[in-house]
């Protein structure tokens, strides 16, 4: 499941019913002819916001790791990452 939210047995039915109701409502959009309409990805008028290439101070290692559930020797620790053999 791409969302990686850990569905367990029973979850699927629970969500499926509610989601299907929502999706049915969302399907209303099919009624509209939007072929000639451009999408609005952003309502802001701004464009070309660029930052000058000037370094600014960041966090210390301690600050960076302060919230980490598992930090080891300055690294964030994670369990095994299995790429298929």
């Amino acid at each position, binding site marked *: *499941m*791409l*969302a*990686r*939210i*850990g*569905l*367990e047995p029973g979850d699927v039915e629970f*969500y499926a019913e*509610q*989601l299907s*109701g*929502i*999706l049915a*409502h*969302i*399907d*209303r*959009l*099919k*009624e*509209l002819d*939007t072929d000639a*309409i*451009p*999408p*609005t*990805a*952003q*309502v*802001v*008028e*701004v464009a070309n*916001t660029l*930052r000058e290439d000037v370094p600014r101070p960041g*966090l210390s290692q301690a*600050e*960076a790791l*302060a*919230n*980490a*559930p*598992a930090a080891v020797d300055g690294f*964030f620790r*994670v*369990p*095994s*990452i*299995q790429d298929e053999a």
Partner: protein
Amino acid sequence: MSKTKLTELTIKEAARLLRLRSFSAAELVTAHAEQIERLDHRVKAFLRFTPELWEKQAEEADRRIARGDLGPLVGIPMAVKDVLCVRGVETTAGSRILSGFRPPYTGTAISRLFAAGAVMLGVTNCDEFAMGSSTENSGYHPTHNPWDLDRVPGGSSGGSAAAVAAGEAMIALGTDTGGSIRQPAALCGVVGMKPTYGRVSRYGLIAFASSLDQIGPFTRSVEDTAIVLDAMAGHDPLDATSSTRPNDVLRDFDAGVKGMRLGVPREYYDVEGIEPAVKAAIDTAIKSLRDAGAEIVDVTLPHTDYGLAAYYIIAPAECSSNLARFDGVRYGFCQDGQNITESYERTRRKGFGTEVRRRVMLGTYALSSGYYDAYYLKAQKVRTLIKRDFDAAFERCDAIISATSPTVAFPIGAKTKNPLSMYLCDVLTLGGNLAGLPGISVPCGMTDEVLPVGLQVLAPQWREDVALRVARAYEVASGVKAEVAPLV
């Protein structure tokens, strides 16, 4: 001046009295702390408190006042929604997945308010990741409406609205993605405003839907709102979507509505599910405005019906991406697993509540290959249509008025079984988010059951000044003021 009165003042009044040394900033914040102590175990507007901060800030405020600082926000007690990062203060977005998270930085809007002298009381409750219309989705506990503790305060910024309505804070900050400031303001009888998208920096706001989110204030008067907005707004180099337009929110503030055209969209006026008491209150409000000299015109927003569908594709889609960072690796809650995938899934299953998981699933689906065109792209096109509706309407009027919410505050638990019924709370507000417009909700009376009703004013993009002007004129003409709820 009795302590009760201190917590019923507006910012404007408090600032004047602080100058006059009627009381100190320290006394003002203490009065609020005592109010909180008296009431919050019942209202539950707050999640946590920041006494070290408020003591330090109140002291500094008193020093500034002694030096003759005339800033309107110096010493004013403020509550902050749990989605706004303050350095060193536990900020959790109303979610268990962020419990214990202390940001190493403070967001821009709040930094500006701190610089202006505001004093932080604590962090207010909200629906988890700002997803909801009742604050019942909070990962911690629901908040209770100060006007009727068995009812919801609205959401997602329910804690902030309730805090101001209960006299626990003079300012509370909220965020509005589909109506999450305006709707709770209406349900709690306070003033709440969403600025134009891009007016206030989002740096420091834990993102829900990036193209819709905005930070805004809750207060007990339109003038107070204008003061806070003026202090917060303006370009931020850390937010590429923030505008460089100058702040002119206070322009023509007291000019009144004489000669202005106020549009009443028939689709909003007759929206499905609007309660008779709400409709009646709006009719009275329209009359007040007409008597004050405004011309009331009929306008139409033909695609209103499709707004909910477009919103419930765009917002979940963006949030599904924004919430991918909550993986238990660098911050927050972590439930370990045998491998990384298991860890991700266990962490997120346990850490995220039902509504969040629902929207993440919906959003992932809407963006997935094969469905992108039919859902996300389609919704963005419908968004264009909705924006065009407003553009056309604004050719016939200067501002749009309507009810903020189709209903008054509903009982806790009444809508939790059916998500769609909850989503319908936002039908009158989410159009403003889709089109990026500024909108304000002002109290416009009580129902027979003494439940507040809110009047919404929507203005064209960048015309906060118009929305504030109309709201102010209404406040003056009707005599309806935001009151502190009579909780004993």
